[in-house]
Every structure is written in structure tokens, then in C-alpha cells.
């Protein structure tokens, strides 16, 4: 079994080297056959890595503890679905998983684009093969997941594993955790494809913008997965870690946020290149940095360079990642400088109140956020190198910088899409912003009257209302025009509108989701926490609620033993529900965990932790009230939905009756409005 897998990996490694050489040679000598053989090699690599990861999954499912990785990350009593997730819970497995996803993405990218982008395809393959080669090097030579246990039996070394494994980290035994890493990895790995296309474009100096469409689509796919991964990670932290929050500015969390920020910046500024031919260098820098940050994120997560006190000591893969990153940065930097002429833009900024300028500020802010996160995450490393002392910075640093950035971005989310290209007229500003401005300020005043007095939350709520209204108005206006021409209800018209320009209206849906998430984030400002030692019958007051400890129970199963605290939740005299926070002791890993009890509601969560028993025999119960937190997950769902909508191709003729000779009267109305504006200004 393991020899099949190891052989498959080795063969995949060799074929990857071949794919790299064949594609480069094939492109330079214009040998089509050689190019095609490199495409085939890519497919073969995918098949071989699939065999390897299949073997590992099989070994995990069948409790093959002779394999060190299986013994280290699984145990017999583990449910089968968590045995599968053990695949990516450790270093070796997750690196193999990376390789596998990359090989699949690579095969898909080659298969879908080999005819469309003939000239640049060999370089795309070469780039993918280079990255794949790096990961396969790790899989084969450095962190091989198929290492066996050898044991000394009667003077002979025999392959033999322990009777049972060490078990999966209990913190990972949670449903959201089962899909969070694959999604995050799909995002991380996915950014390799747009990176490969961008690199190939620069190398071959493609004319036209066709490559940009392909690159943008792939970026959106990767961005979609990364977004889901980040949000699910926050959700997991909230539901499992038991400190009442969802984001702690931990290096691993930061690692996933950084490429998200640069990827988001790219998805916005790429529009400047498509519509106005601007920002070409900048877009290259963004797509390159996003990819590099993904590799860097994998490195941070897997090498323990920051969180560990002993940098690099824990893992042999650190220096390899540093070398790979170094080579990639140097090559990308050199290539951009070399191709500056090709990237030259002939357009310039016309006005501060324009779509272009809003994109520029959007990029500036996203990059500033990314830089601050990078700076804060690497602060211990930087300070050690510069001052010789290891200094870390905590949540106050990240919050202080990123809350204002977030609010400014939220503001741009509202105004940016409604600014015209080049220059917005005063009339259009009034038409677009007067109503949302007044209504959102009125909402702000109402909140102030209700007692919301903190500055940032107040601003945030006003901006959320503002952005939501502008999004709503865009849909309403477009839908009204369609309804006038073709009848039907406004809702149907809004759907038609979205189908006609999925990218634009999908984008609005994403923005609306972001607004909901900001409402959730803002709720954090109103969190309350109370901790109390309780005996059976004791009561605790928190906010408008009252908790009564009914009983303490214990249960047992093969995977873990657990203790529950059963608490009744009252509001006034009315019993709302019974909550059962839990403490578990996992048998294989001998690790205790806390299982939070949450009563989720749209206005606020009641979040109860059974923290443990005190010396005096009382149960220590911590209760949190977290207002609005669920809007983060709801908003996240809407962001995902909007991105999927934007990924569908637009159907400009949607809503008209096909085949009846009726011409497509309805263009993309709002887009047309903006064009009219621009024309009107130019004529004036």
C-alpha cells in the first residue's frame, strides 16, 4: 500500500519535472508535440497524486497504524468522517493535500484553456509545474506522509505500528472544521492558477485583454473558496475554542486573511484595467503578491515560525519554503521590471470623485490592511532581527489600525460603485446619495437616541445603512426600468436584471453580504461576559437573563468521556431553554476540551462555557452575550451567493422572448446610464 503510494509520488515528481522541461522547451522551439506531451504529463501527475492521497485516506480509514502519520493523527474509535479529515490535520498530510489540489487545478486549467490560450499555455503549465514540483519535493523527500514505524523485535527491525493511534486533535473534531481546511486550501491553491496565467502573460507579452478575463474568473473561484474558508475558520473558533470570540488575530488566522485582502484588491482594480487600461503593473503586483501570500500562509501555518518560541526548530520544511518564496519573489520582481514597457498605461486619473479614484483608495486601504496584518504577524521575527529581542503585538494593534480601515472601506463600498467612470457630475451624486445619506443619518440619530454612544459602532451602523440603501436603490432602479418594458413583478425584474449583468449585480449582492457581516462585527462592541462559580441550584444574572444550574451529569463513549452542566435559561420568570455546556476528555489523545453551549438568535447569542470545577467543588460557568454575531455568518453566506452569481456568465437577452424576432431592447440599463453621463460631460 504505502509502497504504491510512495512510488506514485516519486513518479509524479519526475513527471512534473518533465512537464516543466517539456513545456519550456516546447514553447521556445515551437514544438507542438512537446507542448502537448507536457499537458498530458500534467494530467498524469494529477492521477498519480490522486492515487497517493487515496492510499493515505484508505490507510486512515482502515487504521493502518504502521504508517506514522496515521498513528499520529487518528485512532480506532474515531468516527470515519473524522478519519478522513485527519488527512489534512497534520503537516505531511496537509502538504500532500496541497499537492493534490494543485494537480487537480492544474489539470482543469490546462484542459479548459489549452485551445483558448494557445500561445501562453506552455508557460502556464511551466509555472504550475514549478509550484507542483516544489510541493512534491516536500511530499517525497522532506515530509513524506508514508513513513513507517520500525520496531526492534528480537534484534531485527520489523515494520510494526502501535495498537492504537494518538488520535485526532479534539479541537478539530467539529463539523465546520471538517470542511474549513479543504475550502481554505482550495482558496490558497486556487490562486496558483491566476498567478500562472499572469506570469505567462508577462512572459509571452500577450496582446489584448483576453487573458485578463480568464485570470479574473480563476481569481474569483479561488477568492470564493478562500472567503468560505476564512469565514468557516472564524465560525469554528467561535463554536469550539470557547473564549466567546471568532477572531483573535492569531498568526494562522492572519495568514488566511492576507491573501484574501490582496485578492480582493485585485478583483476591484482589475476592472480599471478592463475598462480604462490603467493599473497594469499594479495588477500584476497584486496577483503575484496574492499567490506569494498564499504560499507564505501555508508556510506560517505549517512551519510554526511565529507562534513557536523556537523558530524553525519544529519543522524541517521552513528553509525550503523560504527558499521557494525567495526565488519566486526575485523572479516576479525581475519579470515586472523587465516588462515595464509592455505594462505601460496611457490613461490617467481624471477626477477625485470618480470610479477610478474610489478603486485606488479601495486598493490603498486593502493593501494597508494587509501590510498591517503582515507587520503585526511578523513583528516578533522583525524585532528579533532588528533589536535582538522578541516582541509581539496583540489584538489592540490590529484593531486600532484595521477598524478605521474597515469603516473607510465600507464607505467606499457604498459610494464607489455609484461614481461614474472618469468624473461624477453633481447631479448624479445628488441623485444617488441624497436619499441614502439622509435615511442613514436618521437611523444614526435614532440609534443615538436609543443609547448607542460609542464612536466606531455609531459610524459603522450609519455606513451599513447607507451601503445597504445604495445597493437596494441600484436594484430597484434597474428592475423598474425592466418592468416598464416587459411587465411582471419587481422581483422577477430584479432577477432578470441580475442575469443580464451577473458581475455587476453579483458584486452588489457581495457588498450587501459584507454590510451584514459588518453589522455582526459591530455587535462585538456590545458583548458582555460574566463568570461565576456555581453549585446545583445556584443562579447567575447576566444582562436581562438569569441562568440556573440544574444538574451536573457525566456520560461516556469510546472516543471521549464527558461532563455536562445543565443550565436553565430564564428571562424574567419565563424559562427560555435549557443549555448543556460540556467538558470532554478525549481518550486517545488524553486531551480535555470544552464544548460550548450556544443559544443562537438573530439579535444576540447566549454563549455558555463550562470552564471546569473549582477546588471547592463548584462548577465554573462563563456566560457571554454576543449581540448580532449571527449576521456575520448570514452575511458570509450572502457573500458566497453573490460570488457564485457573479461567476455565471451574463445573459444580456434575459427576460426577452427568444426566437420571436423581438430585438433585445434592454441593455444593461444602469451601465448605460453611466455611459450617458460620461458622454454628456464630454459634450459639455
Amino acid at each position: 500500500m504505502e509502497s504504491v503510494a510512495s512510488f506514485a509520488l516519486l513518479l509524479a515528481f519526475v513527471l512534473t519535472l518533465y512537464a516543466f522541461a517539456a513545456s519550456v522547451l516546447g514553447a521556445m522551439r515551437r514544438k507542438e508535440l512537446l507542448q502537448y506531451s507536457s499537458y498530458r504529463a500534467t494530467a498524469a501527475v494529477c492521477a498519480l497524486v490522486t492515487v497517493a492521497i487515496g492510499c493515505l485516506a484508505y490507510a486512515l480509514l482502515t487504521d493502518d497504524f504502521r504508517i506514522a502519520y496515521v498513528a499520529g493523527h487518528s485512532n480506532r474509535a474515531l468516527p470515519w468522517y473524522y478519519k478522513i479529515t485527519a488527512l489534512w490535520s497534520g503537516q505531511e498530510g496537509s502538504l500532500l493535500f496541497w499537492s493534490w489540489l494543485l494537480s487537480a487545478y492544474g489539470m482543469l486549467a490546462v484542459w479548459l484553456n489549452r485551445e483558448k490560450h494557445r500561445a501562453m499555455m506552455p508557460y502556464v503549465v511551466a509555472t504550475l509545474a514549478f509550484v507542483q514540483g516544489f510541493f512534491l519535493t516536500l511530499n517525497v523527500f522532506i515530509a513524506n506522509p508514508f513513513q513507517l514505524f520500525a520496531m526492534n523485535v528480537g534484534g531485527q527491525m520489523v515494520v510494526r505500528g502501535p495498537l492504537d493511534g494518538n488520535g485526532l486533535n479534539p479541537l478539530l473534531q467539529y463539523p465546520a472544521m471538517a470542511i474549513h481546511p479543504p475550502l481554505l486550501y482550495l482558496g490558497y491553491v486556487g490562486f496558483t492558477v491566476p498567478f500562472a496565467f499572469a506570469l505567462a502573460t508577462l512572459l509571452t507579452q500577450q496582446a489584448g485583454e483576453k487573458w485578463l478575463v480568464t485570470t479574473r474568473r480563476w481569481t474569483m473561484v479561488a477568492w470564493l473558496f478562500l472567503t468560505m474558508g476564512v469565514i468557516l475558520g472564524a465560525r469554528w473558533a467561535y463554536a469550539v475554542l470557547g473564549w466567546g470570540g471568532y477572531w483573535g488575530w492569531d498568526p494562522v488566522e492572519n495568514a488566511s486573511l492576507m491573501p484574501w485582502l490582496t485578492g480582493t484588491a485585485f478583483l476591484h482594480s482589475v476592472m480599471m484595467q478592463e475598462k480604462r487600461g490603467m493599473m497594469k503593473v499594479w495588477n500584476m503586483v497584486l496577483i503575484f503578491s496574492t499567490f506569494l501570500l498564499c504560499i507564505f500562509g501555508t508556510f506560517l501555518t505549517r512551519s510554526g515560525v511565529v507562534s513557536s518560541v523556537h523558530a524553525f526548530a519544529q519543522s524541517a520544511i521552513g528553509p525550503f519554503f523560504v527558499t521557494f518564496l525567495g526565488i519566486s519573489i526575485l523572479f516576479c520582481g525581475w519579470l515586472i521590471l523587465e516588462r515595464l514597457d509592455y505594462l505601460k498605461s496611457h490613461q490617467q486619473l481624471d477626477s477625485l470623485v470618480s470610479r477610478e479614484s474610489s478603486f485606488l483608495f479601495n486598493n490603498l486601504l486593502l493593501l494597508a490592511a494587509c501590510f498591517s496584518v503582515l507587520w503585526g504577524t511578523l513583528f516578533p521575527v522583525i524585532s528579533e532581527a532588528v533589536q535582538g529581542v522578541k516582541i509581539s503585538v496583540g489584538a489592540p494593534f490590529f484593531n486600532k489600525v484595521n477598524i478605521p480601515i474597515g469603516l473607510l472601506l465600507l464607505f467606499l463600498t457604498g459610494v464607489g460603485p455609484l461614481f461614474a467612470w472618469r468624473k461624477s457630475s453633481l447631479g448624479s451624486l445628488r441623485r444617488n446619495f441624497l436619499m441614502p445619506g439622509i435615511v442613514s443619518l436618521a437611523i444614526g440619530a435614532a440609534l443615538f437616541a436609543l443609547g448607542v454612544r460609542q464612536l466606531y459602532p455609531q459610524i459603522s451602523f450609519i455606513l451599513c445603512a447607507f451601503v445597504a440603501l445604495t445597493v437596494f436603490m441600484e436594484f430597484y432602479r434597474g428592475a423598474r426600468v425592466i418592468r416598464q418594458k416587459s411587465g411582471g413583478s419587481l422581483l422577477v425584474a430584479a432577477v432578470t436584471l441580475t442575469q443580464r449583468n451577473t458581475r455587476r449585480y453579483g458584486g452588489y449582492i457581495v457588498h450587501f453580504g459584507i454590510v451584514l457581516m459588518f453589522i455582526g462585527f459591530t455587535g462585538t462592541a456590545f458583548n458582555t461576559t460574566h463568570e461565576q462559580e456555581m453549585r446545583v441550584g445556584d443562579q447567575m444574572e447576566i444582562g436581562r437573563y438569569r441562568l440556573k444550574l440544574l444538574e451536573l451529569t457525566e456520560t461516556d463513549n469510546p472516543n471521549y468521556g464527558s461532563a455536562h452542566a445543565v443550565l436553565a435559561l430564564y428571562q424574567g420568570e419565563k424559562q427560555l431553554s435549557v443549555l448543556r455546556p460540556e467538558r470532554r476528555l478525549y481518550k486517545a489523545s488524553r486531551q480535555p476540551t470544552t464544548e460550548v453551549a450556544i443559544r443562537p438568535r438573530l439579535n444576540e447569542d447566549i454563549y455558555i462555557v463550562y470552564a471546569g470545577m473549582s477546588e471547592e467543588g463548584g462548577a465554573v460557568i462563563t456566560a457571554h452575550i454576543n449581540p448580532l454575531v449571527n449576521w456575520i455568518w448570514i452575511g458570509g453566506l450572502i457573500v458566497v451567493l453573490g460570488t457564485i452569481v457573479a461567476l455565471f456568465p451574463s445573459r444580456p437577452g434575459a427576460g426577452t422572448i427568444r426566437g420571436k424576432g423581438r430585438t433585445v431592447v434592454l441593455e444593461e440599463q444602469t451601465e448605460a446610464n453611466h455611459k450617458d453621463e460620461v458622454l454628456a460631460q464630454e459634450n459639455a
Partner: protein
Amino acid sequence: MATRPRKLKFAAGVVIILFTLAWLGYSGIQESKTYYVTVTELLAASDASHKRYRVAGDVSPGSIQRVEGRVRFQLHQEGNVLPVVYVGSTPLPDTFQDGAEAIADGRYQADGTFHAETIQAKCASKYEPAAASAPAVSANETPTPPGNY
């Protein structure tokens, strides 16, 4: 062409934003910067009471006491002992046990105790086993390796 003042306006906007953020970042760093030290280094430091520290050490077995809702314990390293009082609000991690490797964030007090606001702990027994140092299995126990070919 009126590009010059326009560019100037734009540059001014950028500069204002970046300076504000830099200032916020600087004050954020001052507020939350934490020095990484070991127990020995902290006890040797001269003006230890002004800064925030992240102290790494091992929890002395038997030293964990819960008094009046407060958790007190000792961190030790190379024969040096640091008394710690946990003053944070979140529940202590499950891995916080006798002998665990712990990291405490907080401030050193004039009375010689360390007031920790957060504590992270790594269970002493839970290290990823290297492939060579497998858990001991006696020779007559034969694990059945399924799917062996």
C-alpha cells in the same frame, strides 16, 4: 490641463490616510507590545515593571491553587520560580495542567508576582511523536496491519 492640482489632491488624501494609520499603528504597538522572555530572563531584568511580558516556563507540579475565584500557580525554569496570578477573564485552556509548558501574558508587579491576563499552555505529554520514537509496543502484541501488500 488641470492634472497637477488633481494629483496633488489625490496625493494629499493618500498621505493623510497613511499617516493616520501609521500613527494608529504606532500607538497600537506601544499599547500592546509584549516582550518574549523566559522565567530566568524576567527575574534577571532590571526594570521589569514597566513593560508587558510574555513569559514562557513550566507549570510547577502541585502549585495550581484556586483561591476566591483567582488562579495562582508557579512557573519554573532552570531552578528559578515565578509566582503567577491569573487575572484574566476567559477560562483557562484545557491544556493548563501540572507540568505543562505555559506562556503567560501580563505585567510583573512590584510585589514579585506576575499578573497574567492570558495564559496559553501546551500539554507536556502531547508532542507529535517522531517516527523513530514510536509509542512502546511490546513484542508479543502483534498489531494487524490491514491492507498490507
